[in-house]
C-alpha cells in the first residue's frame, strides 16, 4: 500500500470528479427531456410515431454505449454536410460528443421507464377526470404526469446510477473525467490498487448520495 500516492492523487481525482458531475448533470437534464418526449410518442396511437419511438429506444438499449460514442465522435465527422454545418461546432469537441451520446442513451432508458409508469396508471383515474369534465390536456399534466413521476422514481434512481457509471466512457474520447485521470495515474505509477481504492471510493460516495436522494424523494412523494 502506497499511502502517499493515495493522498497525493486525491485532489487530482476530486478535480476530475467535477467533469464527471458536469457530464452527468447535463446529460441527465437533456435525457429527461428526450425521455419525456419519446415516452409520450410511445403511448401515441399513431403507428408511425409509435414505431419510431420504439426503434429509437431499441437501438440505444441494444447497443453498447461505447459504440454510440464512437459513432458520434469518430463517425459523424466523416460526413461533409455535417462538417460544413453549424453542428460541427459541437461535434468537433469530445465534450459535446460525449454529452450527445449520453443524453440519447439515457433518453432511451428514461422513455422506457416513463412508458411503463404511464401504463401502470389505473384507467379509473383518467376516466374519473374525464367524467368530471376536465380537459384532456389538464388530465395529462395534472393527473398522469405526477403519478407517472412518482411511479418511476425507483427505476429512475437506478438509471442515474447507471449513467454515473456510463460517464466513465468519456475517457475513451480523450476527456479527463474521474476514470480518465485514474487511468492516467495508474499508467504512470503502476499502482492500480491504490488508485482504484481512491477513485472507486469517490464513485461509491456519489452512488450513495444519489441513492439516498432518491429514497428521500420517494418518501416525500409517497401516497
Amino acid at each position, binding site marked *: 500500500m502506497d499511502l502517499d500516492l493515495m493522498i497525493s492523487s486525491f485532489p487530482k481525482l476530486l478535480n476530475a470528479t467535477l467533469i464527471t458531475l458536469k457530464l452527468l448533470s447535463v446529460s441527465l437534464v437533456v435525457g429527461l427531456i428526450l425521455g419525456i418526449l419519446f415516452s409520450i410518442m410511445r403511448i401515441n396511437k399513431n403507428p408511425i410515431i409509435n414505431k419510431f419511438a420504439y426503434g429509437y429506444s431499441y437501438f440505444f438499449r441494444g447497443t453498447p454505449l461505447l459504440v454510440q460514442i464512437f459513432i458520434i465522435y469518430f463517425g459523424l465527422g*466523416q460526413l461533409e454536410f455535417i462538417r460544413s454545418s453549424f453542428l460541427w461546432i459541437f461535434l468537433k469537441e469530445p465534450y459535446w460528443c460525449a454529452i450527445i451520446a449520453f443524453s440519447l442513451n439515457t433518453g432511451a432508458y428514461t422513455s422506457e421507464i416513463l412508458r411503463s409508469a404511464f401504463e401502470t396508471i389505473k384507467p379509473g383515474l383518467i376516466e374519473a377526470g374525464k367524467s368530471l369534465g376536465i380537459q384532456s390536456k389538464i388530465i395529462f399534466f395534472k393527473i398522469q404526469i405526477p403519478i407517472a413521476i412518482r411511479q418511476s422514481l425507483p427505476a429512475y434512481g437506478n438509471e442515474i446510477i447507471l449513467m454515473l457509471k456510463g460517464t466513465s466512457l468519456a475517457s475513451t474520447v480523450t476527456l479527463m473525467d474521474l476514470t480518465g485521470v485514474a487511468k492516467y495515474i495508474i499508467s504512470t505509477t503502476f499502482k492500480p490498487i491504490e488508485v482504484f481504492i481512491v477513485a472507486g471510493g469517490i464513485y461509491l460516495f456519489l452512488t450513495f448520495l444519489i441513492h439516498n436522494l432518491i429514497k428521500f424523494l420517494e418518501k416525500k412523494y409517497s401516497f
Partner: protein
Amino acid sequence: MELLAFGKTGWGDELFIATLMTLAVSITAILIGFLFALIFTPLKLSKNKFLNLIANCYTTVIRGVPELLVIYLFFFGGSGAVMFVASIFGYNDYIEINAFITGSFAIGIISGAYSTEVFRGAIQSIDKGQFEASKVLGLKKPIHFFKVIMPQMLRLALPNLSNVWQITLKDTSLISVTGLVEIMRQSYIAAGSTRDPLFFYSFAAVLYLLLTFISMKLINRLEIKYSRGY
C-alpha cells in the same frame, strides 16, 4: 459492401471472427459470474452477519463503480497479482496474462454481482413451504437444493438473468481498451485503416443488435420451457 468482403480485400472475415470472440468472452464472463454468484448468494442469505457483510460489500462496490475502472484495475493489476501469488510459491519470473483471461475475469466479476442479486431475489421469493416440506421429508441437502430449490429458482430468475446477459454482452465492448480483438477493437482497426469510421462503427452497432436480438429469442424459448405447468 466491398469493405465487408471475405478474404484479403475486405473486413468480413475479420469482423466475423471478432463477433465470435465477443460471444466467447461474454459466455466465459457470464459463467465466471455464475460461479461468483454461487459463492456469494449463500453468503447473502446466511444468518451470519459477517458473511452477510462480505457479500454486501462485493455487490455494492461492483455495482457502484464503473465497469471501465474495474477493467483498468485488472488490466494493470492482473499480472502483478498473479506474480505476487506465484512468488509465494517460489516462482519469480515475469508472468503475462492474456487479454482474454483478464477481460473475461473482469466482466465476470461484474456480472457475478448482478447475478448474485438476481439469485438472491429468486430464492427469497420461493414459497417458504417448499423449504419446510423438503426438510420434513428428510431430503438430503444436495437433493434439497438441486431437485427442489434450483428448478423453481431458475424459473423465477430467468427473466432477470436475461437482463444480466444483455448487460454482460454490452460490457464486453469495454474490453477493447485492453487490446483484445473483439467487435469494437476490430472495428477500430478497420476504421483506422480504411478511414471510414462511420461505416464500421455503425456495422458494429448492427452486430451488437443482432446478438442481443438472437439471444433474446433463445432466452424467450427457455422461459417458455421452464414455465411449463404454471
